[in-house]
């Protein structure tokens, strides 16, 4: 018998169940990322990839006056 939180499978169905669980976990991970639920480490960093507007950039740039600032424009791929 293979038991997973909500479901249990007879021993003979273990392989099928394992495949189903793997697929479900993969799909849930993908869905979580798509919904903006990021890995714990990124949350701990307090960082997310939000949209940035020109005005937000200008405001943050001016807030850090007195520091040397570097702006980089990059493509992620």
């Amino acid at each position, binding site marked *: 018998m293979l038991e997973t939180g909500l479901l249990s499978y007879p021993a003979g169905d273990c392989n099928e169940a394992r495949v189903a669980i793997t697929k479900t976990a993969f799909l849930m991970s993908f869905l979580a990322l798509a919904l903006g639920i990021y890995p714990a480490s990124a949350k701990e960093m307090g960082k997310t990839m939000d949209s940035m507007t020109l005005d937000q*950039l200008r405001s943050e740039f001016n807030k850090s006056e007195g520091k040397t600032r570097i*702006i980089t*424009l990059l493509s992620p791929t």
Partner: protein
Amino acid sequence: MLQTFEKLPTESLRGFIVWVPVLAHDTPLAAFEHISSDPRLLEGWDENRKISDAFKQTLALHRIAWDAYMIYAADVVWNDEKNPPLPTFWMHQLNGDSGADPALTLQEDVFFKAAQDQLKVTAHAGQAAQAAR
């Protein structure tokens, strides 16, 4: 850019990474894979390339502004709502037809030295201001 921040662990440095959708697979998720844990860096997704377009004007480029690395001195203020100020120094990895000066093609050691020099200028200005008090 990240290497520059790793080599210069000073609070006198602040960075902004603007992720620009340029290539077919560019998404916020793809950008998130590169996100840095350095708290001095603010990163964001330039959804409609409005930021890129603004820098295209400032840098007098003929094409999309990306792969561009700009250093600003500590006393530069961004006043114009639509146009970013000219960088104190900048480099790029753009093609010749972009309008960018090929002499400014990114060399990491040159860029690092420029950032280091700006930090020295900032430190000297701070010391001079303290001495004047």
